[in-house]
């Protein structure tokens, strides 16, 4: 890959990830959601692969954990889904309840629905990461 591609890729990684997080946390108030954020982050990852090759990416980024991240995302979503049942509520009962005022951090509102979206984000990132990892380096596990 050309020097320019590498330079731009390296330059872009952090901003793209920040955009992803932005899409994620602002998803409830603006365009975007966990799925879109996950794909953006995965694209950032893919760009690194294209620019630097699998060896460099795998030593720099925790790509090994992609399946784990996906499973963790599902677990988080299931937790938000089933957690209220354990507390005697209906499944997927989000907090704060309708009418209650959410906690604010700046203009960010803390609500459990966003946690569910974080689960979706992690799952999409992990799943696409897994697929990318196995496409680019398909026989990493072969003896």
């Amino acid at each position, binding site marked *: 890959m050309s020097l320019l591609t590498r330079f731009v890729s390296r330059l872009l990684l952090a901003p793209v990830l920040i955009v992803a997080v932005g899409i994620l946390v602002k998803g*409830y108030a603006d365009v975007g959601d966990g799925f879109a954020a996950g794909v953006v982050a995965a694209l950032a990852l893919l760009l690194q692969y294209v620019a630097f090759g699998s060896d460099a990416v795998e030593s720099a980024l925790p790509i090994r954990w992609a*399946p784990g991240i996906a499973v963790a995302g599902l677990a988080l*979503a299931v937790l938000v*889904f089933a957690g209220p049942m354990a507390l005697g509520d209906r*499944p*997927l009962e989000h907090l704060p309840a309708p009418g209650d005022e959410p906690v604010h951090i700046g203009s960010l509102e803390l*609500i459990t629905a966003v946690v*569910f979206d974080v689960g979706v984000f992690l799952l999409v990132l992990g799943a*696409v990461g897994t697929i990318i990892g196995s496409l680019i380096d398909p026989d990493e596990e072969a003896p």
Partner: protein
Amino acid sequence: MPDRSADVTGPRIARSALAAVLVAVAAFVATWVAWEAGGFEVDLPWAPVWDLRLSLELDGLALLYAVLAAGIGAVVFAYASAYVPRHLAHQGRPRGEEARLHGAMVLFLVSMLGLVLARDLILLFVFWDLTAVASWLLIGFDRANRPARLSALMALLVTTITAVLLLIAILVLRSEYGTTQIDELVAVARPGWAVALAGVLIAVAALTKSAQAPLHFWLPRAMAAPTPVSAYLHSAAMVAAGVFLVSRTHPLLALEPALLDGILAVGLASIVVGGLLALWATDLKRLLAYSTISQYGYVATMLGIGGAAGAAGACLYVLVHAIAKSALFMTAGAVTEATGRKELPRLGGLARRMPLLAAGSGAAAATLAALPLTLGFFKDELFFKAAAERGTWLAVAAVISAALTLAYIGRFWGGVFLGRSDATVRPLERRLVWPIAALGALAVAGGLVPGPFAELAQEAADVTAAGPAPVDVAYHADTRTENVMAVAAWLTGALLLAGRARLQGLLSAIARAGQAIGPERLYTVALEGINALSNRIHDVEVRDLRARIAAVLVPASGLIALGVIFTPTGSTYEVGRLVGADVPLVMMLGIGVLAAVAATRPRRHLRLALSLSAVGFALAVVYALLGAADIALVAVLVETLFALLFVGVFSLVPARVLRRESRRRGSPSARLRNGLIAATSGVVTMLVAWGAFSRPIPDDPSAQRHLALADEAHGKDVVTVILADFRGLDTLVEITVVLVAAMAVATLLHGRFRA
């Protein structure tokens, strides 16, 4: 004379083995302490929406099975700490794999404890399936060994398919009586179709778990497991779970006397089938496996007889059998480790070489054969009493059963320890011998002081019979029925043992007939058939993608075209007015059309992929122009990702294959056919879309409601609110599918170079 044969120290005990023993001992102590403190009860709401409760209670029945699972578990785990390193060494496997076995053993112990404590049938079902999973891990511990894997699969399939029947039974009871709590069910259930149906299903599931005929065949196969696994699963745990379930639901089953008669018949059949095969078998562990089928047949028979006598006999029998059979299984393992042999004809004369082992397993064998001065004597007394109360024919059957048991157990012990043989005896670790001696001593102690054992069995029998079911154990030197029957059984058994050689031909014929037409054959044929069917479907699915797409597109577009033709058109197809603001929209649609047409041209794969994604990008812009920002964002992202993934996939295919494929030109007729299919379906789709857009969009009240509710759900972006809140369950299921698909892709790609 000190037992020289048990003088080897052996390798250090693995930490995982030690932990397993400690868990078992702790469970044992905790059970006793809790019982002495008056039992315990936990009742937590688990999923209140479905009225499920995490409800556990330690009653007499749970006590008996928990004590057995933990107590026998502790002894067997101690034995395993010495056995498993040897087992792994024989196969040249690293010692690190030991932890896997001990872990699965503990998982089994825990699920067994959960099973016996559960008061809610759904909870019981969960633990029931957990034991099946744990048994699969244990039986298939020798992963490299194909028969072991198949045996594990067989045990899993046979017990979990019937477990589904148990679930159906639970749901039937729940729909009829509105509860899954066992106590509540027993209180409200009345004889009727619901109880009869549920009872049959429960009985089938339970008797299969206890390896009763005709679904007994998985148990001898399960002998592929390492010996400690067999010693645990097939004495005190896995097979015990089946009769436990019958005991637990006995007050329900007893509502339909015909059900109990069925269980009685299955039990008797299993006694005979298991007994005859045990008399025939020569492999040590197989002989014991057949004996287990037969012995649980006794328990099923007594539970089928029912009443106070049946319940008392069944509970004491389970207790005695667990002690004796685990000791005998461990004996088989120790003997094979010492001599390297596992066939009866090649063994013999070990009594002098391994006196402690001989004494311990002798006591265990004697208690199973119901000789006096062992705990087992009383189990047969109770069996005879229950049978004689039922009728003469059952009394005769009971005597024959006991005679069979005496014969094959006598054959087992005599064949190993008496006579002479040329086998060389290697020394064994103490931990391979002492557990057997301890269990043997326990059996003899029970024969001398049966009180505590009888008490334990009685607590369980009271629950089973739902009333007092005294376990009377005492020696009586008189000619009461039980004593006469016992003497008759010993004599018949001795005759059988002496004349076995003459029966050999008959026994082999029975065994061969069973293999040829028995239920195991049916299982194999069914499994192969299902496999072949699945392969056929898979073949049809993947062989020709183009034909499959055509098979969907042609009939669908034909039917829709018919619909379009026969629908009164009138104002259906309108051409709306274009205003100036629509120009960008029309331009983007035009670009989309151009890209789609262009996509039919390229012969190179990469160009094809890129022109297809150009269509997608054009549509994304259309969404954006229509004000659907969320959809546009996702469309752009997904198109980008797909374009890149296409490139990634193409890079995996060798270049010459891509070149060859892109040079391939179909015959003119095939190209004409493909063109026709594509054109027809395209035109019909367009007609439908045109018709749909010509109507005014109906006012969807749910859309308005969603918009109104989004604010209440603290969201300003209604799409996200729908995904994460209103339709959260859909999203959850969808992301699960994404995960499964990703795992499948990764697995396929990893396997690519291994095949």
